[in-house]
């Protein structure tokens, strides 16, 4: 592959991943309202376009058209930096996720992963841990007590749940023996999905993913009944839109990560028996991955409209006194079993 072809292919892949993230985040807002409506026996948005499918576009236009207010007493640079960081960190995680195997076109192999770094999981951990800056900086720069409280809640919650999440990932890495997401996805052919080997680890990861994306039942940073809007109380127009949008992109990306780490990624059992051509199999793999992702996005929404919000002390108890001991225990069990097998 020549250098210029390589650059073009990478740019195209990055743009496609970026656009897909944005479109899925856009339609997640629509799906969320439809799911909520379904669960509450309502119709949901149905005015803009057939079945209301143009609703996200209308919402986006509304966001752009709204008056932009920057509070006089706030720190203007940091006030704008907050939502920018939130949006930036949620968009860059897609770079290490293997969206499929590889397409063979015009005599070249095009891998459907932007970059395969050998520490893919740690990269994701790093990006999630920087993600909290968006909320903290925004909440502090607003110069509002409710925003500050929301920001502090967000940061303490994310730091607490990162520990359990990291331990769950350590157990997974002990099982897979690699940190590269590509290798982890490739290992799970057929029925060898990691969730069957790491059920407890998956459960811990799932709970932590809810906490890291600030979704109900852990949406205390923006709990409207106590903190008005939490960290984004002072935000208006598209800067508010960025915060809300970043949450939906995070939801999409964490669904993709859960599918890749625990549910086989682009693999599907029995598909190897069909003897498809490599390209068809690769495209089908992408379809399977997205089916799993959509299921997890639906799961996020399902939980949101079913489970009520925790209290903050309950959240901290769950994180430090239940999930972390459980995950340490699970790491020990995984280590013991791995030692027994590989002895």
């Amino acid at each position, binding site marked *: 592959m020549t250098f210029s072809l390589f650059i073009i292919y990478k740019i195209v892949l990055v743009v496609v991943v970026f656009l897909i993230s944005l479109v899925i985040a856009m339609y997640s807002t629509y799906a969320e309202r439809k799911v909520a409506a379904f669960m509450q026996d309502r119709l949901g948005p149905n005015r803009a376009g057939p079945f209301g499918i143009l609703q996200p576009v209308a919402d986006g236009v509304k966001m752009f058209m709204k008056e932009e207010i920057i509070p006089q007493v706030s720190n203007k640079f940091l006030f704008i930096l907050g939502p920018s960081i939130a949006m930036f960190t949620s968009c860059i995680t897609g770079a290490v996720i293997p969206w499929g195997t590889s397409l063979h076109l015009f005599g070249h192999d095009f891998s459907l992963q932007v970059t395969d770094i050998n520490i893919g999981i*740690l990269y994701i951990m*790093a990006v999630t*841990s920087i993600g909290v800056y968006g909320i*903290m900086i925004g909440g502090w720069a607003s110069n509002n007590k409710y925003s500050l409280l929301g920001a*502090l809640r967000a*940061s303490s919650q994310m*730091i607490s749940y990162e520990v359990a999440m990291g331990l769950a990932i350590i157990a997974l890495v002990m099982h897979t023996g690699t*940190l590269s997401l590509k290798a982890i996805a490739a290992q799970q052919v057929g029925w060898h999905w990691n969730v069957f080997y790491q059920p407890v680890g998956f459960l811990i990861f799932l709970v932590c993913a809810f906490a890291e994306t600030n979704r109900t039942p852990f949406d205390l940073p923006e709990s409207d009944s106590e903190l008005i809007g939490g960290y984004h109380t002072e935000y208006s127009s598209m800067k508010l839109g960025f915060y809300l949008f970043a949450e939906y992109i995070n939801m999409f990306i964490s669904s993709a990560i859960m599918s890749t780490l625990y549910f086989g990624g682009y693999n599907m059992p029995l598909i190897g028996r069909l003897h498809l051509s490599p390209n068809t199999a690769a495209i089908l793999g992408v379809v399977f991955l997205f089916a799993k992702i959509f299921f997890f996005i639906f799961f996020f929404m399902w939980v949101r409209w079913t489970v009520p919000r925790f209290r903050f002390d309950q959240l901290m108890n769950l994180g430090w006194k239940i999930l972390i001991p459980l995950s340490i225990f699970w790491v020990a069990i995984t280590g013991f079993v791995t030692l027994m097998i590989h002895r």
Partner: protein
Amino acid sequence: MTLYLFLILGFFAVLSALMVVFSKNPIHSILYLVLTFFAIAGEYVLLNAQFLAIVNIIVYAGAIMVLFLFVVMLLNLNHETEPHKSMLRKLIAVIAAGLLMVVLVGSLKGADTMAIQPFSHNAGLIENLGKVLFDQFLLPFEVSAVLFLAAMVGAVMLGKKDIK
């Protein structure tokens, strides 16, 4: 190319480290410190130490600095409440920091620089790092682990409100 990138990153690291000291607002200081860590992580990547770079970001930029930010935000520091230090204290602080710098420079000067091959390919990859840590440097590694555990227990003890 790599050398220029390295120099640019180094320049940013030093610049933002200076801004940590010179900026008036403590929150800005912390944000500049985060920038410094990112620049240093970039240097690690250029030296093929990817694992070190990522861990540097996770631990320092992602956890410790968030806690710093957390504390400073809760303290709500501003010009009125800032304690005014006497000249003597400032002088003592400068001398202490200067002595620390002398020690650092001295130890770097005495170090064996021949062992370092800055642009070797897989020196910092996680497999090699693991092999070195659990084979060649097992004892220091475990000792530092015990040290961390002791520090953690100490922190929990200090954080307890009522010690019986």
